[in-house]
C-alpha cells in the first residue's frame, strides 16, 4: 500500500512537475513573505526583513533543491533533469559533441559488431549435447611427411572404440557423393558415409523418423538420413518422406529420418545426406586406408590433455604392427576445429576493437577534462545554488552517459552493416549464421556503453566537482588546474598514442602477410577459369568412364568462347587431400612408411588448360594410353625431395598396394609447384597420373576446368548443355570460377586485414585528435600567460618551442610505450601470419614515421597558434 502510494506520488510528481515546481516556489515565497512580515513587526526595515527571512530559509534555490533531493524518486527526477541538461550542453558545443559522438559510435559500433561474430563463432554452444566434450581425433603423421591432422583408418576406429578408457564413444565419417535422380533433374548432393553412432556421439535427435541402426550399418542396408534443407528443397517438405524410396547413385535407398534445420556437422554445413559407413570386413583390419574423420565424446571428468596422452599411447600400441610404424594422435576440441584460423582472427579483432574503444574513451576523457576546466565558473554557480558534490558528480556522469548513449545508438546503426560484412567470416564448417542484434549482443553493447561512459566520465566528473569547491567564483574564470592535472592528461595522451602504435604495427604486419598471400605463385593462371564437378559414380566401369570424360571434354572445348578444358580428380586449391605412400625403384619396401605424396588423376591437356608451367620433360600426351608401364608427372617438391640436384626424368616409382602387384610408373615430366592444398597451405610432393592409365587409382577425374576467352559465367549454361548431349543424367555441381575459390580462401585474411587496418587508422586519427584537442585547450587557457611571457620578451619561436617540446615529448613517450606493446601484440598475431615472416623492422620504422608525422601535425597547429598570440590582445582579454 505504502509502496503503491509512493510510486503513485512519484509518478504524480513527474507527470505534473511544472505544477509541483510552481507550488513549491509559491509556498517558499509565502514563507519568506510571512517571515519578513514578522521581522518587520519586530522593527526591521522591509529590505533587511526579506534578507533575514531568506537567510532563515537558507536561500530560496538551495531550499528548493533540498526539498527536491529529499523526495522519494528524487534520483529519477534528477537524472531526468541531468539528461536534459546534458543534451543542452551538447547543443551548446556542437563540434565537441559531434567529435565525441562519432568517436564513441565508431568504437562502440566496432566492438559490438566484432562481438556478434565472436559470440556466434566462439561462444554460443554448438548444436550438440554438451558440445564442450566433443573432440576430433586425427592421426599424427607428422613423422612421415604427412600432417599432424591426418585422416584415420576404420581399423584404428574399431580398435580405439574397443580399447580406450577416456572416451564415451567415437564415430567415424567419410566423404561420399550422392547423385539423386528420379524425382526431377539429376543432382549431386554432398553426402557422408557415417557410422551408426554419429548421432549418439553428438547427442542429436532427428526431426523426423530415426537414424539408422548398428545392424543396418553392419549389413550395408540401403538407408539414408537427409538434411532439413534437402527435404525442403527437393522433396517440398513432403510429410510422408520417411519410408519413401529414393534413387541414390542409381540405387533405391529408403529415407529413414530427417535432421532438424539447425543440424550440421563437419566438414561443412552443406552436407545433405548421411549413409551408413558399412565398412567391408577387409577394411576393418586395414591400417592403410586413411579416409576417416573421427569425432569423439570425452568421458566426464577427463581433461583434453589426459585424453590426448591416453589415446596417443593406445594408438602407438594399436598401430605397432602397421608396416609404416606406429603413430600418435592429435585431438582438437570440435569448436577449435570448426573455427580454425577465423577463431584466432576474431580474438585479435576483439582485442583491437577493445583497444579502439579504450582510445575513444581516453580521448573523450581528455576532451571532457579540458572542457571541465573551462566550465569551472558554471560549476561554481551550480554549487552556490545548492548542488552538493555528489549531485555535481552525478550530473557530470549523466552528461557522459548521454554522450555514450547517443554514441551507442549511432554505433549500433553502424554495427548492422558491419555485421553483414562479418557474416562472411563464419567458417564453412559451421552453421550458416545470420549475425543479429539479439539480446546477447545488445547486452554486450550496453555494458560497453556504460563502461565507456564511466571510463571517460569518472575522472572529469571528479575533477569538475572539485574545481567548484576550490575556485568558486573568486577567480576570473581562468580555470587553472595545476601541474598535476596536466600530468594526468598527458599520461592519457601517451596511452592512447601507444595503443594506436600497437594497432598500426599489427595492421602493418597483417597487411604485409596479406600482400604476400595475394602474390603467392599458385602455379596456375586463375583468370577466366571456370571450374565445376561432374561426379562419376555412375561410371563404375573404367573404360566407359574414360570414354565419357574424353567425350565431355571434347564437347566443352567446342563451345564458342572456350579456349581449352581439362579434368582432374580434385580441383586445385580446394584442400581435399588425397595421399598415397610410394616407393622409388631400388628402395627396400619398408621405406613406404616414410614417403607420402599427394596424388591426382588428370586428363590430357589438363596442365595446359589450367596454365601450369613445365620445369622439364613433358606433360601427358594422347599417346599415353592404358599400359602396364604408365607415366607420371611429378611436381618440383617431389623432384627436389627425392632427386636433389638431379633430373628425375626416367626414374620409376610405385604406389603402396596391398593385395595386387602395382605398376611401376616412369616419371616423364616435372611441373612447377601448383598449390593443390590451398593458397596459404604448404606445398607437398605430388604425383599426377593421366586418367587413361589410372586403372589402378581410386580417383576419377570428376573436376572440370574450362579456360575461356569470355566471361566464365556467360558460358555456364552452354557447358551444361554440352555435357548433357553426352549424358542427359549427368549432374554438374559446385560451379565456381577459380578467382572465387581464391577469394573465398583469402576471406579470413582479407577481412581481418581490412578490419584491423581500419581500426589502426581510426586509432591513429583519434590519438591525433586527442593530442590536438588537449594542446589547443592548453593554448586557449594559457593565452594570458603567453601574453605576459611575450610582453616580458619571449619570442614567438620560444613559445612555439615550449609547446612543441610538450607535443614531441608526448609523441615519443607514446611511441616508445607503443613499440613495447607491439612486441606483445605481434606475438598474439603469429597464427594469422600463415607462416610468413613479415619485415618487422620495416613495419616498426614505417609506423614510427607515420605516427610522428601525424602527431607532429597535431601539436604543431596549436603550438603555432600559441606563438602567434598578440600580447596586447591577450592581456586585454583579462
Amino acid at each position, binding site marked *: 500500500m505504502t509502496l503503491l502510494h509512493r510510486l503513485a506520488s512519484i509518478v504524480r510528481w513527474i507527470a505534473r512537475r511544472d505544477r509541483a515546481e510552481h*507550488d513549491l516556489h509559491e*509556498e*517558499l515565497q509565502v514563507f519568506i513573505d*510571512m517571515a519578513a512580515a514578522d521581522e518587520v513587526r519586530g522593527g526591521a526595515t522591509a529590505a533587511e526583513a526579506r534578507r533575514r527571512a531568506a537567510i532563515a*530559509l537558507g*536561500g530560496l534555490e538551495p*531550499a528548493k533543491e*533540498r526539498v527536491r533531493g*529529499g*523526495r522519494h524518486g528524487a534520483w529519477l527526477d534528477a537524472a531526468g533533469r541531468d539528461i536534459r541538461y546534458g543534451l543542452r550542453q551538447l547543443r551548446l558545443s556542437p563540434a565537441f559533441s559531434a567529435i565525441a559522438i562519432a568517436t564513441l559510435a565508431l568504437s562502440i559500433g566496432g566492438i559490438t559488431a566484432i562481438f556478434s561474430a565472436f559470440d556466434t563463432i566462439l561462444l554460443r554452444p554448438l548444436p550438440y549435447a554438451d558440445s564442450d566434450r566433443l573432440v576430433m581425433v586425427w592421426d599424427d603423421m607428422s613423422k612421415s611427411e604427412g600432417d599432424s591432422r591426418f585422416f584415420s583408418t576404420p581399423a584404428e576406429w574399431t580398435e580405439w572404440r574397443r580399447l580406450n578408457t577416456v572416451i564415451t564413444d567415437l564415430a567415424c565419417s567419410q566423404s561420399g557423393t550422392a547423385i539423386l535422380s528420379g524425382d526431377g533433374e539429376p543432382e549431386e548432393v554432398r553426402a557422408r558415409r557415417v557410422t551408426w553412432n554419429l548421432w549418439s556421439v553428438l547427442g542429436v535427435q532427428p526431426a523426423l523418423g530415426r537414424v539408422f541402426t548398428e545392424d543396418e550399418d553392419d549389413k550395408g542396408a540401403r538407408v539414408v538420413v537427409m538434411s532439413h534443407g534437402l527435404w525442403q528443397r527437393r522433396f517440398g517438405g513432403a510429410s510422408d518422406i520417411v519410408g519413401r524410396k529414393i534413387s541414390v547413385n542409381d540405387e533405391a535407398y529408403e529415407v529413414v529420418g530427417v535432421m532438424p534445420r539447425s543440424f550440421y556437422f563437419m566438414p561443412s554445413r552443406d552436407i545433405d545426406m548421411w549413409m551408413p559407413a558399412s565398412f567391408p570386413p577387409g577394411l576393418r583390419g586395414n591400417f592403410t586406408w586413411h579416409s576417416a574423420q573421427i569425432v569423439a565424446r570425452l568421458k566426464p571428468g577427463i581433461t583434453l590433455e589426459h585424453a590426448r596422452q591416453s589415446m596417443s599411447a593406445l594408438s602407438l600400441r594399436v598401430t605397432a604392427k602397421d608396416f609404416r610404424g606406429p603413430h600418435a594422435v592429435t585431438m582438437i576440441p570440435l569448436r577449435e576445429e570448426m573455427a580454425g584460423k577465423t577463431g584466432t582472427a576474431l580474438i585479435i579483432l576483439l582485442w583491437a576493437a577493445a583497444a579502439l574503444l579504450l582510445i575513444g574513451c581516453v580521448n573523450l576523457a581528455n576532451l571532457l577534462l579540458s572542457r571541465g576546466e573551462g566550465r569551472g565558473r558554471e560549476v561554481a554557480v551550480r554549487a552556490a545554488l545548492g548542488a552538493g558534490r555528489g549531485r555535481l558528480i552525478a550530473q557530470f556522469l549523466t552528461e557522459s552517459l548521454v554522450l555514450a548513449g547517443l554514441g551507442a545508438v549511432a554505433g549500433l546503426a553502424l554495427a548492422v552493416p558491419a555485421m553483414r560484412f562479418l557474416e562472411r567470416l563464419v567458417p564453412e564448417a559451421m552453421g550458416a549464421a545470420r549475425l543479429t542484434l539479439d539480446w546477447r549482443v545488445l547486452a554486450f553493447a550496453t555494458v560497453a556503453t556504460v563502461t565507456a561512459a564511466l571510463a571517460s566520465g569518472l575522472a572529469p566528473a571528479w575533477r569538475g566537482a572539485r574545481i567548484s569547491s576550490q575556485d568558486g567564483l573568486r577567480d576570473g574564470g581562468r580555470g587553472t588546474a595545476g601541474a598535476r592535472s596536466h600530468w594526468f592528461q598527458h599520461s592519457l595522451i601517451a596511452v592512447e598514442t601507444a595503443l594506436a602504435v600497437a594497432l598500426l604495427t599489427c595492421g602493418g604486419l597483417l597487411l604485409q602477410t596479406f600482400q604476400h598471400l595475394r602474390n603467392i605463385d599458385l602455379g596456375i593462371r586463375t583468370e577466366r577459369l571456370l571450374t565445376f564437378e561432374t561426379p562419376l559414380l555412375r561410371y563404375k566401369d573404367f573404360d566407359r568412364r574414360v570414354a565419357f570424360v574424353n567425350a565431355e571434354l571434347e564437347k566443352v572445348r567446342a563451345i564458342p568462347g572456350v579456349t581449352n578444358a581439362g579434368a582432374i580428380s580434385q580441383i586445385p586449391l580446394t584442400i581435399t587431400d588425397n595421399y598415397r605412400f610410394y616407393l622409388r625403384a631400388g628402395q627396400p619396401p619398408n621405406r613406404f612408411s616414410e614417403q607420402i605424396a599427394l596424388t591426382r588423376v588428370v586428363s590430357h591437356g589438363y596442365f595446359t588448360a589450367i596454365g601450369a608451367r613445365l620445369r622439364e620433360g613433358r606433360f601427358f600426351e594422347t599417346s599415353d594410353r592404358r599400359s602396364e608401364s604408365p607415366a607420371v608427372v611429378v611436381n618440383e617438391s617431389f623432384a627436389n625431395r627425392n632427386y636433389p640436384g638431379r633430373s628425375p626424368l626416367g626414374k620409376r616409382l610405385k604406389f603402396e598396394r596391398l593385395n595386387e602387384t602395382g605398376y611401376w610408373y616412369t616419371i616423364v615430366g616435372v611441373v612447377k609447384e601448383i598449390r593443390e592444398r590451398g593458397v596459404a597451405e604448404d606445398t607437398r610432393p605430388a604425383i599426377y597420373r593421366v586418367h587413361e592409365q589410372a586403372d589402378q587409382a581410386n580417383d576419377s577425374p570428376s573436376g572440370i576446368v574450362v579456360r575461356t576467352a569470355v566471361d566464365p559465367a556467360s558460358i555456364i549454361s552452354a557447358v551444361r548443355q554440352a555435357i548433357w548431349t553426352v549424358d542427359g543424367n549427368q549432374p554438374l555441381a559446385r560451379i565456381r570460377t577459380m578467382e572465387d575459390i581464391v577469394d573465398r580462401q583469402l576471406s579470413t585474411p582479407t577481412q581481418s586485414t581490412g578490419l584491423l587496418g581500419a581500426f589502426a587508422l581510426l586509432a591513429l586519427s583519434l590519438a591525433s585528435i586527442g593530442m590536438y584537442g588537449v594542446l589547443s585547450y592548453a593554448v586557449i587557457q594559457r593565452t594570458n600567460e603567453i601574453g605576459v611571457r611575450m610582453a616580458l620578451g619571449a619570442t614567438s619561436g620560444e613559445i612555439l618551442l615550449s609547446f612543441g617540446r610538450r607535443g614531441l615529448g608526448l609523441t615519443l613517450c607514446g611511441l616508445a610505450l607503443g613499440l613495447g606493446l607491439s612486441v606483445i601484440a605481434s606475438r598474439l598475431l603469429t597464427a594469422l601470419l600463415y607462416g610468413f615472416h613479415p619485415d618487422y623492422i620495416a613495419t616498426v620504422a614505417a609506423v614510427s614515421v607515420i605516427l610522428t608525422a601525424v602527431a607532429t601535425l597535431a601539436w604543431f597547429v596549436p603550438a603555432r597558434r600559441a606563438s602567434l598570440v598578440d600580447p596586447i590582445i591577450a592581456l586585454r582579454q583579462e
Partner: protein
Amino acid sequence: MTHVEKLDIPQGTLDLMILTILSREPMHGFGISQRLTVLSQDQFRANPGSMFPSLYRLEQDGKLKAEWRATENNRRAKYYRLTASGRRQLEHHRERWNRVSFAVTSVLEGA
C-alpha cells in the same frame, strides 16, 4: 545579552514534532516553524530549510495532506493537515519516544 547556544534537532524527531503540531489544527509552513520555536521554548535551531523537505516527504508518504487556502490575513498559503495514517504514525512514534526518553532518564538518574 547572554548567549545560549541553540540545540540541533535530534535526528528523526523533526517528523514527530511536525506531526504533533499538526495534530491540533492544520497549519502552513511558517506557522509550523513559529510554533516549533515557541513550543521548544526557543531552544531549537528550527531551520525552515530542513523543515520543508520533511513536510514534502510526509505528504508523499500520505501522513499529511496539503491544500491551498486563505489565511486569516486573507493571503493564500499551503496548509498541511494530519491524515488518519499520519495520526496512527504519531501515536506510534509518541509511544516509542516516551519509552525511549523514560528509559534514558531512568538510566541518567539511576547512575
